[in-house]
């Protein structure tokens, strides 16, 4: 029995999308990746170094893109935004901008996450005070290779990292943990400390959730070698002083005393949020979303990558916050489920 080549559409060319696409192409399926941006790679394009090994994200993206070259039946269409998806007789019709219409036997959604807009926490002054930046801004600054400075060009003598911005906070509607911000903060603190050894660095946290392999080593290193201080307490508000420093107030909950400190720079560890694209899928009743607006899995234990709609799969941070290595693992798992689905379809078609 000869295998009929199936067509899979992958939406989003971040690492989850690229990796799933490669694996599916390797299994012999025809694959089309649709990306709304001009270039693939997603958020990883903006990151400087990855935790825990400080590796560069560029090699991950370029590695995945190089791998693509060996598959003729894999193509990528960029600068294209999906407008709608319809399901007909077990097949999918995907409409995109430029009157593009693609038919597919299965769809993988890997649209990723959106960074929390820190302006929502007005009391921390993002967008208002120049020396309040987010972890993403800091990552860009580190990537630029320029030495880190305050808005007025001075070397910061004291930097404060604030954990849980837009995560675990009912006040901005996100009650879940974004999982990677704690370690991102530790990683970035280490990088600043290596770049500016004289700079004092403080991390204000509610709980340190350093869940991953080798993450605690970074924590120990940050404390021991770099004298980075971890203060358990949530920042209440920031105010600008006349010399454009920032005065922050928190409670040092472990000593039970209010704490006030002037710093030159605040880094807000912004969490991950659902992508706006999710709304398009749920409004047409094609897919269900979970209580946080991420895509709902068919079964959270067994089939994380299957949606409530047969034939549509999900991979990466459109399911929930994940680190880079987890995303890659997750993409692999997604490709296995897609393969299984297509094989089953083949069998039923054959019997018919």
């Amino acid at each position, binding site marked *: 029995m000869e295998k009929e080549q199936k067509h899979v559409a992958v939406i989003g060319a971040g690492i989850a999308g690229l990796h799933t696409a490669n694996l599916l192409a390797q299994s012999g399926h025809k694959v089309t990746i649709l990306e709304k941006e001009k270039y693939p790679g997603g958020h990883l394009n903006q990151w400087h170094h990855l935790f825990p090994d400080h590796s560069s994200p560029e090699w991950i993206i370029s590695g995945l893109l190089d791998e693509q070259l060996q598959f003729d039946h894999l193509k990528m269409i960029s600068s294209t935004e999906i407008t709608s998806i319809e399901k007909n007789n077990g097949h999918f019709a995907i409409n995109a901008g430029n009157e593009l219409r693609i038919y597919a036997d299965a769809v993988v959604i890997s649209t990723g996450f959106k960074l929390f807009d820190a302006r929502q926490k007005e009391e921390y002054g993002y967008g208002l005070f120049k020396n309040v930046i987010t972890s993403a801004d800091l990552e860009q600054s580190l990537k630029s290779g320029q030495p880190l400075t305050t808005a007025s060009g001075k070397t910061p003598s004291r930097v404060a990292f604030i954990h849980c911005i837009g995560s675990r906070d009912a006040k901005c509607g996100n009650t879940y943990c974004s999982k990677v911000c704690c370690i991102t903060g530790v990683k970035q603190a280490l990088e600043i400390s290596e770049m500016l050894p004289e700079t004092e660095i403080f991390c204000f946290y509610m709980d340190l959730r350093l869940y991953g392999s080798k993450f605690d080593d970074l*924590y*120990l290193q940050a*404390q*021991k070698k770099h*004298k980075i*201080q*971890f203060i*358990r307490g949530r920042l209440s508000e920031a105010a600008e002083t006349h010399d454009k420093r920032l005065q922050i107030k928190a409670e040092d909950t*472990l*000593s039970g005393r209010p704490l006030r400190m002037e710093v030159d720079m605040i880094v807000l560890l912004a969490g991950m949020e659902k992508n706006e694209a999710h709304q398009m899928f749920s409004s047409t009743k094609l897919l269900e979303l979970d209580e946080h607006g991420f895509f709902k899995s068919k079964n959270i234990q067994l089939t994380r990558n299957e949606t409530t709609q047969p034939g549509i799969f999900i991979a990466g941070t459109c399911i929930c916050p994940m680190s880079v290595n987890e995303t890659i693992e997750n993409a692999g798992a997604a490709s296995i489920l897609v393969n299984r689905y297509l094989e089953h379809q083949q069998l039923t078609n054959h019997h018919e």
Partner: protein
Amino acid sequence: MQHIETLIKEKLNSDIRFVEGLNACMNCGICTAICPAAEFYDYDPRTMLTIVQSGNLQKIRELLESDTIWYCGQCMSCKTRCPRHNCPGLVISVLRKISQETGAFTQSRMGRQQYLLRKGLGNALLNIGYSLHPSFIKPADHPEQGPVWQWIFENASEIYKTVGANLDEEGPGVLRKIDKEAMTEFRAIFEETGCLELFRLIDQYSSIKALELGITNEANQPDMDQYLHFIENEQETSY
């Protein structure tokens, strides 16, 4: 002021007990959980270690001038439990020494008692080689020991003999008289290790404190007997 804080920093960093005793604390609190002193005193080894770890010299200085560091019983239970191999007990030893060396100890009630210890235990050690000797426990001063002690005290030489001790006699045995040669060697160790210097500093800072408190004799000199009496009777403010 600035000078003292720099001095504290130097002393801290040059002490092996500090370098070995603090290995990045993560505030788990197991030391406080096990600490016998923490159960009864307003004292918490975890908080103390956090302060030292913060490197905030002003806070460390406040610590040196407080009662806190003197509550530790040096049982070192903390050492055996710490998941990061820290030893708050050792860190406290360093802090105590710096407090003695800088005179910070005279700023707290518990700290001032260093003078009491130096006079009592310290002098006893230097004079007879024992920090505590049965002859020190005078029945008049210790009514709580009751009439039996009175009887033991009066018939000491015979009673100690019956339990195999060699009280104040030449030769071997428990409570023997320490011979001259050993005493010389003992004093030399004290001299070499800096203990005598520490004694001298305690004396010096305590006299300064006595002056400061106005505890003086007719010649306007510090009256150290009266000072001893004063620190013996100083009351704990509250617990």
